[in-house]
């Protein structure tokens, strides 16, 4: 599998390992949606994500929008390639999106 999606309990969310692109973004979107429906903050651990394209950005934006007013989307430890795309398309500017554990701070 190009992308492994592991559910995590504390914090509640998912750990992503592999590459996120147009071939698997809709699968990720569906998996995330079930958790979004329960409300509250959602954490995505991105440390193991070696690649993300603009369809991945779409998933993040839509997730943040569905959580709006009910919770935050927390992005943990994006690697250098993921940080590069977040630099160019700054999803973290949305009110309820936050990046923690940036490599530079580690």
């Amino acid at each position, binding site marked *: 599998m*190009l992308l492994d999606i592991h559910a995590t309990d504390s914090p509640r969310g998912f750990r992503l390992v592999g*590459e996120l*692109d*147009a*071939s*698997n973004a809709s699968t990720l979107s569906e998996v995330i949606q079930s958790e979004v429906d329960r409300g509250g903050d959602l954490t995505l651990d991105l440390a193991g994500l070696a*690649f993300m*394209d*603009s*369809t991945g*950005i*779409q998933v993040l*934006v*839509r997730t943040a*929008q569905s959580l709006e007013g009910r919770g935050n989307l927390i992005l943990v430890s994006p690697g*250098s*390639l993921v940080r*590069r*795309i977040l630099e*160019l*398309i700054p999803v973290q500017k949305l009110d309820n999106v936050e990046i923690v554990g940036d490599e530079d701070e580690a």
Partner: protein
Amino acid sequence: MRTRPELTGNARSFPAHPSMLHEVRRFVRDRCYEAGMHPSATDDLVLAVSEACANAVLHSKSGVVQVAWRAGAEHVEVEVADQGVFRRTVPLQEVEGVHGHGIQLMMALMDEVTVREGTIGRPGTVVRLVKLRAS
């Protein structure tokens, strides 16, 4: 930055299926490595080519996508060619929801981007991506 005969080239065809994106990224990454391109310039080019191929796969209705790689002394360029017609309606975010901003992202990543739009009379959209080695 125009294509010159002295460029070393390399082209490959991929099936127009989302699973090709991973293969294309590896193809471009390997060529950049062989050409001694800077790692961060390589990362940018790999992402831009992946975006161009995703557009061809998602929008062009082609069976095959051709990726041509060329290296010059000062730059590397990749051409992504499909056999389709460029969809000329600008997506209104308010109507169609979030979009991938693929073309804007390519422009943010590259030093030069050309899009030749395939038409019904002259099908085949070609996206040319140029990255300076030094940038």
